[in-house]
């Protein structure tokens, strides 16, 4: 074992590095993205008992589960979006595994999102964050903290007659992260990487369009971002190895130094 890994193992054992769970529980009643009803819909998480130590299987309990690739806390691969359909290695089973572990920065927009549920994060906001915390490193995950994960029920999607209202990056904001900072991926606490009103931005759904067109990844429905430091944590987000999969529910973990927060 290399010195670095021995030190990490020790740090995990003595608690100087802790592991934070950024995942929501897969719950049948957890919101999913809602599209116009004539379009195909995201399957909800469902669980059917196969047996429970009974006549169907006396000594064992197990379930069949069904869901979409995009149900619950999930990963978006480049082939999820039309802009990423021809990007090489664009499916979850093809993405190099070293992409699933890496540095992460957290941009705190929680005050702004509390003030304005349609808050969009633009380049000026990101630059102001960099003035305080340093330049976003290349090939890092960028997570947008909004504390949206603390909402539950109807306020989470915040769906009204004119659509959902939740924060996300502006078109310029996500282009800045992808083109100027060459990030690895972008993650949110909301149901998608785009703002609730993202279809009215240009291009529509700019986070999906820009990230996946550039071969970058998405994470959404994250939680506990308030337990991460602005910089210095390591993110572990490995989707299921689904053949030609466009995404996957997954357990997202972060390793955080004890004094980092």
């Amino acid at each position, binding site marked *: 074992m290399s010195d670095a890994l021995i030190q990490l193992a020790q740090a995990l054992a003595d608690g100087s590095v802790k592991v934070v769970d950024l995942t929501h529980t897969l719950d*049948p*009643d957890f*919101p999913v993205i*809602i599209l116009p*009803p*004539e379009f*195909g*819909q995201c399957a*909800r998480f*469902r*669980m*059917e*008992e196969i047996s429970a130590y009974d006549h169907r299987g006396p000594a064992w309990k197990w379930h069949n589960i069904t869901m979409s690739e995009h149900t619950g806390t999930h990963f978006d691969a480049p082939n999820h979006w039309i802009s990423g359909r021809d990007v090489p290695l664009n499916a979850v089973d093809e993405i190099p595994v070293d992409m699933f572990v890496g540095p992460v920065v957290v941009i705190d927009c929680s005050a702004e999102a509390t003030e304005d549920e349609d808050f969009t994060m633009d380049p000026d906001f990101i630059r102001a964050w960099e003035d305080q915390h340093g330049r976003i490193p290349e090939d890092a995950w960028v997570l947008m903290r909004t504390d949206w994960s603390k909402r*539950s*029920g*109807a306020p*989470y*999607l915040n*769906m*009204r007659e004119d659509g959902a209202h939740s924060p996300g990056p502006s078109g310029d904001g996500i282009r800045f992260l992808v083109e100027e900072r060459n990030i690895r991926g972008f993650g949110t606490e909301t149901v998608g990487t785009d703002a609730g009103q993202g279809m009215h931005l240009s291009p529509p759904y700019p986070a999906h369009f820009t990230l996946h067109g550039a071969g970058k990844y998405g994470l959404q429905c994250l939680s506990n971002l308030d337990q991460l430091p602005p910089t210095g944590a390591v993110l572990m987000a490995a989707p299921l190895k689904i053949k030609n999969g466009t995404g996957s529910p997954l357990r997202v973990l972060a390793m955080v130094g004890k004094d980092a927060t």
Partner: protein
Amino acid sequence: MTTPLTPPPRKDPQKRTVSPTQPPGMRSRASLGLSAAAAEGRFALQACAECGKVQYPPRDACSGCLSTDLPWRDVSPSGTLLAETTIRTSVNLYFRERAPWRTGSVQLDAGPVILCHVHNDCDRNGRVVIWNRLDRSGQAVLLAVPEERTPVMEDDPQLRAMTSDPKHRRALITDARNPNAPALAAALKQAGASMIFVAEAESWRPYPGRKALEGIGGIEFLQMDVTDTSSVQRMAGEYGGKTDILINNARFIRPGGALARGDVAFARDEMEVNYLGLLRLAQAFGPAMCGRAADGVNSAVAWVNILSAWSLSNNAEFGCFSASNAAAYSLSQNLRAEFRPSGLRVMNVFTGPTEDSWFQPVPPPKVTPQAIARSVIGGLRDGLEDVWCGDVAKDMHERFLQNPKILEREMTGGGQG
């Protein structure tokens, strides 16, 4: 005069719940024509095709000319009460528990003299109307009622034993999101239901009917989604013992048949809601309801499915939806068999296109939520098994009875020139 039913007292927790018993259910095959008519609330008897004689009781050969051609025909239900008596004891458990029970003979205007149950408001030698109703064994029995309605005649214990009247009963509507939910809830309240539970799926997204439901007042919302087994089991655990009438109005619908769709995603959703939803509800709520089918004034009494008339014959424009409804219809027949020992009645209300967004491009006539609600309440009050709501459904049924193959050929269209 009938004594009005009073709201039942709260259940005595020290008393064992009365087990359901049945009136005699054996019938000859010929007699089942009477049950088929009762399932739709019609009074029909065999009328000889050769000599015209109206037969009673049902038989295999004409009592006048021995012809075996005895088609069933709706006949005048009017008659005169000839003789009546009150039975005060019986070796049959069902009647023993329900005595005294009034019976008599009626001279029908249509010819025969029949033996029947007699409503307590009928006058001796008075004019009566015969209602052909299903009893708790699911077989036809004849009940003489006064020619003119009497106050609260539906509260007569003999009549109430045959019907599924919502009065003083607790009803569960399984899908708050269906556009017909507010009309159903309002109609149940109007009909005297004591509690109305409405199951709401995915309360994390709004829907227009919520305000209307809240406006009715007294509605209790339950968090339940018929596609989520755990939520159905949870609600059945909590409310199964308080559900006297279950109205399954959950529906998933998208236009298109097999080729128009190109995938199985919506078809799967249709099966999940329309077929498996019914199955989940039955497995979760069925046992509790069957166990309470003789539990006094607010006994569990009816299971209502709102189905598409296209469950009888496929409509290609909604081909996959029709198929899911055919599956649900078939399952409803299975439920009839499994509920039979308890007396819990399965009532199917068949509709044509409904007045909602999925049928917006379909020309009228369309069934309004209020029409569905009227059919449900009317069917419950009459204790029916099959109700055809609206002209499209009635027409479908008629054509189905005449010749299902011709109906299929008409429904599947096509051809050139």
